[in-house]
């Protein structure tokens, strides 16, 4: 009875209700889209920053993250390669790495040298897609190297040139090799383009006297969420081998910090928006309650309890907020799905975005969280603040209410 009455009461002042619904729906739409867009950007940043090289997660020897020494061999790495059978993980790739002096003629530069499995690496890292000249490493490569465009430029190298590598091996002896430049990549990320090189893992192990050891196993999944959800299982696998598992935010804490900072700023804005919307709606409903005080007096006179009248008003508020939020979620989801397909470009911001591995367009990511969080907070706040008119009604006396203007 109360629900039916509350629903009809909403439509007593259709213009007022429609305006309230438009306000609610529009703010919900904005929240759905903005949060989806923000989460989409974060995903793009994470995928761009981590997918390019680090991978979405890594198995490492304990303590390697703080002190990445070549002598820290990943225990049981062959078993850890089987993590690609864990749900949410699609590929794994072993790596060994060290620092070396690269020299060409009279020029030399320090760089990170990574030994990778050319057959497995492209499934984990997108670095191979950024090859600007030449090609990426192939399975049958031996004394081959690929490097970033900045480093190649600094060394004055062109494709086919030889480069001398001088480093310290696993046993502390000199590790020296001469490699041929087969590919130059250009990621747009200066730190990578000026410092990173890759060579076949087998050659690296031989040069650095590592035997069959590797330092890390990097992994990737079809999406970020899957790998994050698989983290407990991956941690258990690592623990079984005496190793450790690092999530994306362990690998790139600066990305996590940037996202946290941006999110907290955005939350402040969302909070202000929600407060404004909630109080506008509450004010509208409170006005409607005051206008109907006389009617409430009449209802009390015929035997309706104040608590029932208060509940009816609360239901009106709940219906209105659910309807408005529902429309907003539907429209917001529609707009978000549409933009998910076409993306949004940011002309003139390519340099800034490229530092985060973002190139071209940015795509929102609609999820249950982004669809429901903002409108949910609006509905929850409205329902909670519905206590104000409810308490007002509980205090009404029939005679004074019936005498109200």
């Amino acid at each position, binding site marked *: *009875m109360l629900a039916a*009455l509350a629903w*009809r*009461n909403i*439509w*007593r002042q259709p213009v007022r209700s429609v305006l309230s619904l438009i306000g609610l729906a529009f703010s919900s739409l904005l929240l759905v889209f903005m949060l989806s867009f923000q989460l989409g950007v974060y995903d793009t940043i994470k995928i761009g920053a981590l997918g390019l090289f680090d991978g979405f997660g890594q198995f490492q020897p304990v303590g390697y993250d703080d002190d990445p020494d070549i002598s820290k061999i990943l225990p049981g790495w062959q078993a850890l390669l089987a993590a690609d059978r864990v749900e949410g993980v699609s590929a794994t790739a072993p790596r060994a790495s060290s620092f070396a002096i690269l020299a060409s003629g009279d020029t030399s530069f320090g760089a990170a040298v990574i030994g990778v499995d050319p057959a497995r690496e492209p499934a984990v890292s997108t670095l191979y897609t950024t090859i600007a000249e030449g090609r990426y490493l192939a399975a049958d490569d031996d004394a081959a190297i690929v490097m970033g465009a900045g480093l190649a430029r600094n060394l004055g190298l062109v494709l086919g040139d030889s480069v001398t590598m001088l480093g310290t091996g696993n046993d502390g002896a000199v590790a020296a090799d001469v490699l041929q430049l087969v590919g130059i990549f250009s990621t747009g990320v200066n730190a990578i383009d000026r410092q990173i090189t890759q060579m076949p893992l087998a050659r690296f192990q031989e040069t650095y006297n590592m035997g069959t050891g590797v330092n890390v196993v990097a992994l990737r999944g079809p999406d970020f969420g899957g790998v994050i959800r698989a983290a407990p299982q991956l941690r258990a696998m690592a623990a079984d081998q005496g190793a450790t598992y690092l999530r994306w935010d362990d690998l790139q804490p600066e990305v996590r910090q940037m996202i946290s900072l941006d999110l907290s700023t955005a939350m402040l804005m969302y909070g202000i928006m929600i407060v404004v919307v909630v109080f506008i709606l509450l004010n509208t409903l409170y006005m409607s309650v005051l206008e109907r005080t006389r*009617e409430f*007096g*009449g*209802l*009390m*006179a*015929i*035997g*309706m*309890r*104040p*608590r*029932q009248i208060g509940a009816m008003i609360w239901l009106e508020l709940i219906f209105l907020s659910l309807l408005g939020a529902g429309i907003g979620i539907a429209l917001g989801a529609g707009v978000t799905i549409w933009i998910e397909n076409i993306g949004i470009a940011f002309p003139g911001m390519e340099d800034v975005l490229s530092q985060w591995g973002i190139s071209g367009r940015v795509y929102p990511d609609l999820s249950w969280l982004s669809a429901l969080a903002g409108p949910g907070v609006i509905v929850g706040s409205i329902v909670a603040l519905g206590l104000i008119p409810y308490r007002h009604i509980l205090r009404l*006396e*029939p*005679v004074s209410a*019936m005498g109200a203007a």
Partner: protein
Amino acid sequence: MKAEKKPIVSCKGITKVFGKDELAVHALRSIDLDIIEGDFATLAGPSGSGKTTLLNMIGALDHPTSGQVLIDGQPLSGMSKSQLSDLRLNKIGFIFQAYNLVPVLSARENVEFVLRLLKVEANERRTRADAALAEVGLRGLENRRPSALSGGQQQRVAIARALVARPRIVLADEPTANLDSTTTGELVDLMYRLNQESGTTFLIGTHDPRVMEHSKRHIEMTDGQIESDIRA
């Protein structure tokens, strides 16, 4: 020998004072009054004489400053808001000058509303509501909302609503004040007929002579006091 009927309403020395000190207004001054089952009583007097205040006290809508109101021997003082609501729901029917119908409900739903509050089962609710509307001459208009009814028709819905729960007493405060003379006559006849046929007790606050003509008991008030109480 005929047994003496018990009073439905007993007012014992009730006074009502609005305001304080030099601003105090004595709306009721030590009223003693019994309303007996089957009464068709009118409560008359000039504006400000205390008719509405007395009806509010009897209807458990307001509290006296002193004295006691008893409904069926049960004192209202000390009852909670919820208990007073239940008492009004179960024992008192109200008819207001301004009808006080719920605008978003149809005539039938307005009448059914009281039965819903009483948790009457749906089929019985509808049967009783339709019967009450037929009783007041509104058969065929059950689905109309108040805005689609004339003033007289709305007041008939209010009468049906007041009677449908079979209250012990119906309190009407200036029920014909907003109606034309023809409609007033029809409504007074209707209330009188209901009193005659079903024995429903009516206490009607009015200064309309056409209402007073039907009165079996006429109570006259002046300055918050009962000046006369005459049975026809």
